[in-house]
């Protein structure tokens, strides 16, 4: 029973982490119809910043990681995606795939093929006892961080003018523009927000592993993207829930799968995804089946 509860807390932490990544992807998808593979490279960039600057002190390093995440995201928008507003979503997908691939090579050129390590926030990896459960402090921090950021994003989207504009643009971009929403500002803001979320994900992941390489952010981005799609990437809550489900599934599968097949964890997650897509192609939370023109 205790071990079950422990695994539940781990699963919620993993779910929160994937949900943060999926939320970042869902925000951008909402305004641009872009499933941004290159989100992973924002995470990687922030992670490198953390590892390389941690000796300067936690606060400085964290701030720099956030700045790098936001700047990278905004740069992607300015240099690449802004010029592709009229492109269809398949072209955008290929473009972000190419961007992701190219940036991994940039990281390899800049930081080498080997893994960079640093003891980032090692204090968080220790175990604490809560109500008789042995829990990693990091799991609790992840859950709190996830909850705070999600509530922050929610407040931002519902309480501020620009947030409302982002929401409007995400439900119907053309009409929003006709009503005076400034496209560049809203899209730029959305990318910045996704960069911020990516740097939070990077912090948790780096604390977990303490090591970064050029493909650091790929795995979580692919799984979160998949999560967002099965949840229904057309809505933010859909992306969020989908990401959470995938995170929980990944964590639970690695806990309960027998050792012989635990290597196949991601394969099981992928199979689950294909099954969900077959039953609910527009996502778990989609209001109805929307016929999409390809």
């Amino acid at each position, binding site marked *: 029973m205790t071990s079950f509860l422990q695994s539940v807390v781990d699963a919620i932490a993993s779910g929160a982490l994937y949900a943060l990544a999926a939320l970042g992807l869902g925000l951008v998808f909402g305004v641009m119809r872009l*499933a941004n593979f290159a989100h992973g490279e924002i995470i990687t960039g922030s992670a490198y910043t953390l590892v390389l600057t941690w000796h300067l002190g936690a606060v400085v390093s964290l701030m720099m990681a956030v700045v790098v995440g936001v700047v990278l995201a905004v740069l992607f928008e300015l240099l*690449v995606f802004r*010029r*592709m507003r009229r*492109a269809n*979503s*398949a*072209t955008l*997908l*290929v*473009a972000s*795939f*190419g*961007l992701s*691939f*190219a*940036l991994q*090579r*940039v990281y*390899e*050129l800049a930081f080498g093929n080997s893994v960079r390590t640093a003891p980032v926030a090692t204090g968080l990896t220790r175990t604490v006892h809560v109500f008789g459960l042995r829990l990693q402090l990091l799991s609790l921090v992840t859950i709190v961080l996830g909850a705070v950021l999600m509530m922050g994003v929610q407040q931002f989207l519902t309480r501020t003018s620009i947030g409302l504009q982002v929401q409007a643009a995400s439900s119907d971009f053309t009409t929003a523009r006709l009503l005076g929403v400034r496209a560049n500002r809203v899209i730029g803001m959305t990318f910045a927000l996704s960069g911020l979320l990516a740097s939070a994900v990077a912090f948790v992941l780096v604390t977990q592993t303490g090591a970064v390489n050029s493909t650091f952010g*790929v795995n979580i981005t*692919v799984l979160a*993207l*998949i999560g967002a*799609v099965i949840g229904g*990437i057309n809505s933010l809550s859909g992306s969020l829930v989908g990401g959470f489900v995938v995170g929980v599934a990944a964590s639970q599968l690695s806990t309960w799968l027998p050792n012989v097949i635990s*290597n*196949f964890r*991601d*394969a099981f997650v*992928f*199979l689950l*995804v*294909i099954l969900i*897509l*077959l039953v609910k*192609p*527009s996502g778990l939370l989609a209001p109805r089946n929307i*016929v*999409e*023109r*390809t």
Partner: protein
Amino acid sequence: MTVTRAATGTDYDELPNSNGARPASAGGWLTSGLTLAGPLVIVYVVTVLFSMGSGSMQIQTAYALADLVIVVGLQLFVGNSGVLSFGHISFAAVGAWTMGLLTIDPTVKRAVLPQLFPWLSSASASPAVALILGAVFGGVLAFIVAPFLMRLNGLQAGIATFALLGVVVQVLSYWTKIGPPSGQSMVGVPHAFSLQVQLFLALAVIVVSWLYGRTRTARLLRAARENPVAAPGSGINITVHRVLAFGISGVLCGIGGAMWAQTNTVVQASQLSTGFTFTVIAMLVLGGTMSLWGAVLGTLVYSVVDALLQQLQSGLSLGSMVVTIPDGSRPLILGALLILMLLFRPDGITRGREFGIPFLRRRTRARSSATPTGRAA
């Protein structure tokens, strides 16, 4: 008369057509014959030219031909159906695996693949048979998954094919009963085919893709691509035609994978994953997704640029000075090339057109507009 000319002009020449989609009009056989002969001749000539080069250039040519087969296979599905696939390398991986498992020398095999199923451990075949089996297994996998995947559209289809790749790569990486111990590779795959054999395989695959493009099912699939709402309304069962295209492209990718395996002589699941997927998609997008000629030209251009960059990495002497680019910048430049292409010419170099000669194209247009019956044919 002018009206007819305008109409034929729009119908035949302005729309981006896929494989042989140009209707047979008066003199159309020449144009449509060229859409096959052009790519064949150019692939043949380029391969012959490069095969005269140094040893390393010949190896690069062999890789390029394997890539070409996979890209043509991918285009057969993506171009005709309009559905993006990130999963086709799975079929190439199956082909490569078949080639590796059946052609590695038995004594070597027991050493590198200690935990195989006994029947698999004793199985062996000649390279030609292994190639055919690779094609069959690639096709079987594609046909098995197609009925499920092909019900999806757009982003969902892209994600589902990506998930398929994830499953296949993980199974091949970790299932030691059908492969090497995890993280290791299958070494000692014999280099079985000469460049000439590879060239003929590539040409044959181009012919298959061209012939497929002229079948009724391919035309219906393209109709569904252009209008997925009207096509079912006209009695087209999109899923059936997509499944067929997916299966055939799986067969072709299986052949390409087997060719790649015996060129590379080492087979490892991590090499048949997203990196390779990037390469083939970049090749296809560079040339233009919507035509067979795009797949061929894209692969050629990408491979030539790649070879050139490789030369530059090891230092290319131009007269008295030696030009070098830093190690590892090659994939970066290729990635940038893909993005620039998508920014400035998203339809690819060919803009989705089939091979044609401008002079002939103009003459055909003039002739078909001069004879009004030409349009009905």
